[in-house]
């Protein structure tokens, strides 16, 4: 359980740190010749990255509660 907690915190802390880099790269790509639908879809990438961080948090919480017998 402790391993899960530490791993989860590492994922969340590093993920949040990397989030601006992902967003910057996406914006840079959108500033070039990636236009139209491709640009719109590419713009959703930071959202899914953030959802991934959030999912890691949810997973950490639920597994912790499950191990504690609360869920």
């Amino acid at each position, binding site marked *: 359980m402790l391993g899960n907690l530490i*791993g989860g915190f590492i*994922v969340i802390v590093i*993920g949040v740190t990397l989030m601006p880099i992902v967003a910057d790269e996406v914006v840079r790509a959108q500033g070039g*010749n990636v236009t139209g639908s491709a640009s719109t879809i590419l713009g959703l990438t930071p959202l*899914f*990255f953030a959802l991934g961080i959030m999912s890691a948090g949810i*997973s950490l919480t639920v597994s912790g509660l499950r191990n504690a017998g609360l869920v």
Partner: protein
Amino acid sequence: MTNVKLMVVVFVGIILGAVFIDMLGDRNFDASHVQTVTNESITITLGTGTLANEGFISGIAMHNSTAGGVPTHTSGWANGTITSTYAGALTMAQFPGNGTWNVSYTYGDTTTYVHNAQARTILPLVLVFFALGILLVGAIWVYNSLKDYL
């Protein structure tokens, strides 16, 4: 795959994907972009000349540069026919004289421009599916984290 490993894979995948899609976008732009040249001054000798740009597509218009920009002649030149090769070599049949002339035409990138119209229509889809692929990398992370609870 542990969460940390998966996150690094997703991060690298998205960063590399964004770089590649940027390059692909530039390539697609060159592949479908028609560039227009207006009033390029060229020297005609014995009915032949050379355009400054290779990759000629269409639309030769020519007029005498000393005549103030008028009249403009399209591909059906009054005294003959103007033809140009892909490499930019210009030939006029029954040319009336030597001298400096202005030509207007369109051309595409020499190595990248796609001349087939149907292929050019499909080109943007390549970008769209590449963007979907990058999005999927992020979505896989979400799925992998939540798959035990779905």
